[in-house]
C-alpha cells in the first residue's frame, strides 16, 4: 500500500491545539501499527506565531516513525487578514444562515488567500497525487486544507474539527466539505452540525471516529489529595477546566454562579476555574476560585475531588475535559447549544444540559443539593461511554477500519456468470426523473458487477445523450438480460415482449387515467394504454418487480406471478454539490416555508394544497407555500390552480418556480419547514424520502404507496373532508419543536432503507434470477 499523507498547517509533539494534538496522535499511532505515514506541513512553527514566517527548515525529517515534509509558507498581508478576521468574529452567530455567505464573495476569497498558505505544498500535492493512497486534511479553516483539498479531492479525507463559528458558513468551506471523499468527525454532534450546514450530501460519507484520551497516564482511581491546591482543600466545588476566556463562555458561568449565590448565600458550594487565559474571575464574586493554569497532577486532583465538571463552551468539536471528567467518574454539565458536547452527554446519560444564565444557576443549586450517590451514578455512566469511545486503541481501530487499513477486510467474492450484458429499456429519459435516476443507479451497479449495461430509450433530451441511447432494432442482443421499465404506454413495449433472453418487468405504476382525464385527455389515453398493456405483458414476463409493495400488488392483480419489490434508491450523495446561495438567503427570512415537489398534475392535487394552505395562513400568517414542479402555462390544470389562488387572494404567499435545477431544488428543501402532500396517487413518492434526507417533516395524504414509503415515519391524514384540521396538523409540525423532533428522529431511521447499500442486495437477487434463466436455457 502507498503511504498515507496527513496535511496540517502546523505539526509537532509540543503543539497544544486540539487539531495539532490529534494529528500527532493519529500519525504516530498509525505509524506504530506499521502503516506508512507522511505528514505534509509548513515551516511555520505554530498557530501562535506569524503565519508568514518560516521558523523551521524546509525538507524531510523523521519523528516516531513518521516522515515529515515541511514546505515554506508564502508571504501574506497580515494586516488585511487580521482586520477581516476581526470583522468576521464580530458577526452575531444568531444572524448566520446555513448555505448563505455572511460576507461578500470578495471577503471570503480574501480570507482564503491571505490565510496561512504554502505554494510549494500545493505544488507538491498537485504533482504527487498518485504517490499516496489518500490524504487526510485537518483542520478545516486554514489555507492548506481550503486550497489543497480540491487539488486531490478524489483521494481526500477531511478531518474538520468543526464547530459552529462564522468561518463554517463561508462558501469555500462548504466547497471542501462537498468535495471531500469522506469526512471524519471527532463527535456525533460535529457530524450533525456538518449535515445542518452543508446538507444531506454529508450524511453517508461521514464517519464518527472519536478522540482518544491517554487514560493510562491519568492514574484513574488513585487518591491524589496531596496535590490538592490549598485554596480548595476543604471546599465542596464544581469545576471548570479549560481556557478562561469569554469565547469559552466562562463569563456566563461566573454570572450564573453569582446569581446562584444571590439566591443561596449560605451555600458552601464553590466554583473553581483552572486553565490558561488572561481573565481573572475571582475578585468580584466570593466563592469563585480562579487557580489559573495548574500542573497536570493538580488538575487530576481537582477532577477527582469536584462534585461535577461544568463545561459552558458552545464552541467544541470534541471536549477532551468531558471525557477526562468521566474517566474520573465525575458527571458533566454542558451547554445545550453545543452539539458536540450536548449530544455525548445525552448519549452517555453522564450529566445534564443548561443554556441560559438562569438554567446554569439552577444547575448549580441542583448539584449542590444532589445526593453524592446520584452524582456518582451519572459519573459512572459517563465512564462507560468514555471507555468505549475515548480510548486511543479503539479510536485507531476505527480509523483503520474506515480508511480501509484493516487486515480483516473482506474481499468481494465474484460469482460465475453466464450473462455478459444486462440492458435496460425505458420510454423516455429525463433529467431528475425518478425512473431515469433509478435506471442510472441500476446501470452503474450492473457495470460494477462486470456486466455490459446500457439504457435504451425511445426519446431523449439531447443534453442527456451520454446517459442513454436511442433504441434500435439490434441494440439488445438476444442472449442479453433485459430490464424493461413500465410506467406508461410506449412504442417500445412490443420489443420488450419480443426479447427472447431473460428479462424483468420493472413496474413504476401508472397514474389512474380518470384523475387526469378532465384536464389532459391525450395523456389519459396513454395512461389507459399503459394499464391495458399490463394484461398482455403478464403473459410474457415471468419475472417482475415493483418499486413498492403497492405496485407489486397491482402487478399481481393483473396476473403477474410473485412480483418482487425493488425500492427506488434515494441517495443523499446526489446533493453533494453547490446550492443556490441567493435563494437560500432569501428563503431564510423568518417565514415558514411549506414545500411540495412534483409536476403540476390533477393527480398530485396541488389545488387542494392551495386550499388547505389558505386555512394554514389563519394560524401562521407569516408562511409561504412553494410548489416546485414542471408545468406548461397552457395546461388547463395550471389555469385551474391559478384560478384557485386568485379566488383565495393568496397569490403573494405562493411560489410556483416550475421545474427546479438541482441547485435550486436543494435550496428549497434545505429551507423548508414542512413537506406537505395532498397527492392522490404515488407509486413510490421519491420527494417524500428526499424531504427525510433534508430533515423536513412530512405530512401526507394516506393514498396509494404513500403510507408504505413513509413506513414508521412522517404523519399521514386519512380524509380530505377537513382541510382546517389538516392545516392545524401542518402548523404543529412546523412550530411544535417536540413533535418535529419525534418525526425527524423517525425519518432519520426510515430514510436509511433507501440508500444504495440497502438496494444492492435486492438488485443482486434479480441478477441471480436472470442468470438462472440463462443457465436453464443452456
Amino acid at each position, binding site marked *: 500500500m502507498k503511504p498515507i499523507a496527513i496535511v496540517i498547517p502546523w505539526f509537532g509533539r509540543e503543539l497544544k491545539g486540539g487539531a495539532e494534538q490529534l494529528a500527532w496522535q493519529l500519525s504516530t499511532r498509525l505509524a506504530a501499527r506499521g502503516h506508512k505515514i507522511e505528514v505534509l506541513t509548513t515551516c511555520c512553527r505554530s498557530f501562535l506565531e506569524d503565519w508568514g514566517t518560516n521558523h523551521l527548515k524546509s525538507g524531510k525529517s523523521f519523528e516516531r516513525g513518521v516522515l515529515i515534509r515541511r514546505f515554506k509558507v508564502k508571504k501574506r498581508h497580515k494586516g488585511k487578514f487580521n482586520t477581516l478576521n476581526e470583522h468576521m468574529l464580530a458577526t452575531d452567530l444568531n444572524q448566520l444562515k446555513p448555505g448563505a455567505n455572511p460576507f461578500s464573495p470578495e471577503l471570503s476569497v480574501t480570507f482564503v488567500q491571505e490565510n496561512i498558505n504554502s505554494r510549494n505544498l500545493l505544488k507538491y500535492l498537485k504533482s504527487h497525487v498518485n504517490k499516496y493512497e489518500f490524504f487526510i486534511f485537518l483542520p478545516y479553516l486554514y489555507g492548506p486544507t481550503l486550497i489543497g483539498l480540491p487539488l486531490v479531492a478524489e483521494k481526500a479525507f477531511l478531518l474538520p474539527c468543526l464547530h459552529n463559528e462564522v468561518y463554517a458558513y463561508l462558501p469555500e468551506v462548504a466547497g471542501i466539505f462537498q468535495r471531500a471523499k469522506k469526512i471524519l468527525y471527532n463527535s456525533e454532534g460535529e457530524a450533525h452540525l456538518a449535515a445542518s450546514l452543508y446538507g444531506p450530501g454529508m450524511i453517508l460519507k461521514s464517519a464518527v471516529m472519536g478522540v482518544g484520551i491517554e487514560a493510562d497516564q491519568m492514574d484513574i482511581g488513585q487518591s491524589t489529595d496531596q496535590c490538592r491546591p490549598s485554596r480548595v482543600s476543604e471546599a465542596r466545588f464544581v469545576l471548570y477546566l479549560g481556557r478562561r476566556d469569554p469565547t469559552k463562555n466562562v463569563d456566563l458561568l461566573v454570572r450564573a454562579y453569582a446569581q446562584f449565590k444571590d439566591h443561596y448565600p449560605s451555600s458552601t458550594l464553590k466554583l473553581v476555574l483552572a486553565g490558561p487565559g488572561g481573565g481573572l474571575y475571582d475578585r468580584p464574586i466570593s466563592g469563585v476560585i480562579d487557580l489559573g493554569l495548574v500542573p497536570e497532577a493538580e488538575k487530576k486532583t481537582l477532577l477527582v475531588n469536584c462534585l461535577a465538571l461544568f463545561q459552558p463552551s458552545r464552541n467544541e468539536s470534541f471536549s477532551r475535559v468531558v471525557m477526562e471528567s468521566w474517566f474520573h467518574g465525575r458527571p458533566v454539565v454542558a451547554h445545550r447549544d453545543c452539539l458536540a458536547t450536548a449530544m455525548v452527554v445525552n448519549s452517555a446519560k453522564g450529566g445534564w444540559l443548561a443554556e441560559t444564565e438562569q438554567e446554569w444557576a439552577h444547575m448549580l443549586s441542583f448539584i449542590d443539593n444532589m445526593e453524592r450517590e446520584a452524582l456518582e451514578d451519572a459519573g459512572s455512566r459517563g465512564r462507560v461511554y468514555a471507555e468505549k469511545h475515548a480510548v486511543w486503541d479503539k479510536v485507531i481501530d476505527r480509523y483503520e477500519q474506515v480508511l480501509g487499513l484493516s487486515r480483516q477486510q473482506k474481499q468481494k467474492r465474484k460469482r460465475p456468470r453466464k450473462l455478459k450484458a444486462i440492458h435496460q429499456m425505458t420510454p423516455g429519459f429525463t433529467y431528475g426523473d425518478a425512473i431515469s435516476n433509478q435506471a442510472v443507479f441500476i446501470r452503474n451497479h450492473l457495470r460494477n458487477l462486470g456486466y455490459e449495461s446500457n439504457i435504451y430509450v425511445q426519446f431523449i433530451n439531447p443534453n442527456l445523450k451520454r446517459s442513454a441511447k436511442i433504441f434500435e432494432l439490434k441494440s439488445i442482443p438476444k442472449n442479453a438480460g433485459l430490464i424493461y421499465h413500465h410506467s406508461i404506454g410506449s412504442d417500445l413495449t412490443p420489443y420488450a415482449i419480443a426479447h427472447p433472453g431473460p428479462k424483468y418487468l420493472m413496474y413504476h405504476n401508472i397514474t389512474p387515467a380518470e384523475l387526469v382525464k*378532465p*384536464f389532459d385527455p391525450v395523456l389519459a389515453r396513454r395512461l389507459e394504454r399503459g394499464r391495458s398493456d399490463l394484461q398482455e405483458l403478464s403473459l410474457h414476463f415471468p419475472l417482475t418487480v415493483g418499486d413498492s409493495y403497492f405496485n407489486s400488488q397491482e402487478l399481481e392483480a393483473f396476473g403477474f406471478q410473485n412480483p418482487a419489490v425493488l425500492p427506488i434508491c434515494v441517495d443523499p450523495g446526489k446533493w453533494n454539490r453547490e446550492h443556490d446561495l441567493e*435563494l437560500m438567503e432569501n428563503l431564510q427570512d423568518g417565514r415558514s416555508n411549506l414545500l411540495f415537489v412534483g409536476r403540476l398534475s390533477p393527480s398530485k392535487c396541488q389545488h*387542494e394544497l392551495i*386550499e388547505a394552505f*389558505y*386555512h394554514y395562513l*389563519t*394560524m401562521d*400568517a407569516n408562511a*409561504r407555500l412553494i410548489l416546485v414542479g414542471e408545468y406548461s*402555462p*397552457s395546461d*388547463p*390544470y*395550471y*389555469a*385551474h390552480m*391559478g*384560478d*384557485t*389562488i*386568485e379566488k*383565495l*387572494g393568496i*397569490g*403573494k*404567499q*405562493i*411560489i*410556483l*418556480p*416550475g421545474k427546479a435545477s438541482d441547485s*435550486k431544488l436543494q435550496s428549497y428543501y434545505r429551507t423548508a419547514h414542512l413537506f406537505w402532500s395532498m397527492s392522490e396517487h404515488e407509486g413510490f413518492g421519491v420527494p417524500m424520502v428526499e424531504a427525510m434526507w433534508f430533515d423536513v417533516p412530512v405530512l401526507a395524504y*394516506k393514498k396509494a404507496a404513500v*403510507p408504505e414509503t*413513509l*413506513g*414508521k*415515519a*412522517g*404523519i*399521514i*391524514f*386519512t380524509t380530505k373532508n*377537513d382541510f*382546517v*384540521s*389538516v*392545516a*392545524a*396538523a401542518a*402548523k*404543529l409540525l412546523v412550530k*411544535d419543536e417536540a*413533535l418535529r423532533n*419525534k*418525526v425527524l*428522529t*423517525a425519518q432519520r431511521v426510515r430514510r436509511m432503507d433507501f440508500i444504495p447499500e440497502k438496494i444492492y442486495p435486492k438488485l443482486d437477487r434479480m441478477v441471480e434470477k436472470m442468470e438462472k434463466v440463462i443457465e436453464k436455457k443452456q
Partner: protein
Amino acid sequence: MIETNIPDIDVDQLMEKVRAEVRQGQAHKPFDTGSLSQGLTPDKIKSPPNHSVSNAPVLETKKFHFHMNEFLKYEDREFLIKAYDGILWRKPDLDGFEYFLAYLRSGMMDKAEILGRLRFSPEGRERKVKVSGLFWRFLGQAAFRMSGLGPLVSFNKK
C-alpha cells in the same frame, strides 16, 4: 383523521392539539372557503390566470378599471371575494362578508347593489376603482329603496 406509525407519538394527544389549533385559528379566520375545488371544472376556466411565475413570489397586479360583468359572472361567496378584492383590494372582513352574504342569499340585495355599496363606501372612494356600468344600475337600486321613488322605479322595472 391523523395516523402515524411513530411509536413516540400519541395520536389522541396530537388530535387534541390539532383541535386546539383549529379553535385558535378560527378566531382569526376571515371566512370559510367551502370547497372551492369541487365547483371548479376545466370548462369554467376562461384563460390562464394573470400570475407571474418565477422564483419570486407570485404577485397580484391591481386593476383600476373593471366592467361590472367581470364581477357579476361570479356567484355567492366567490362573488363577494372577487368584489372585495377588485374594489377594495383586500379580503372581506368577517362582519361585512356575513352581512352581504345573508342579504345576497335572501334576495334582499342584488349583486349590483353590493358592488355599489363597496365602491361608494369611504374605503371604495379612496381606492377610486372604476366599474363601468355600475353607477346607473346602483343608482336605480338605491332609488328603489328610497321612499316614494321606490314604487315608481319598481313599476318601471316591471
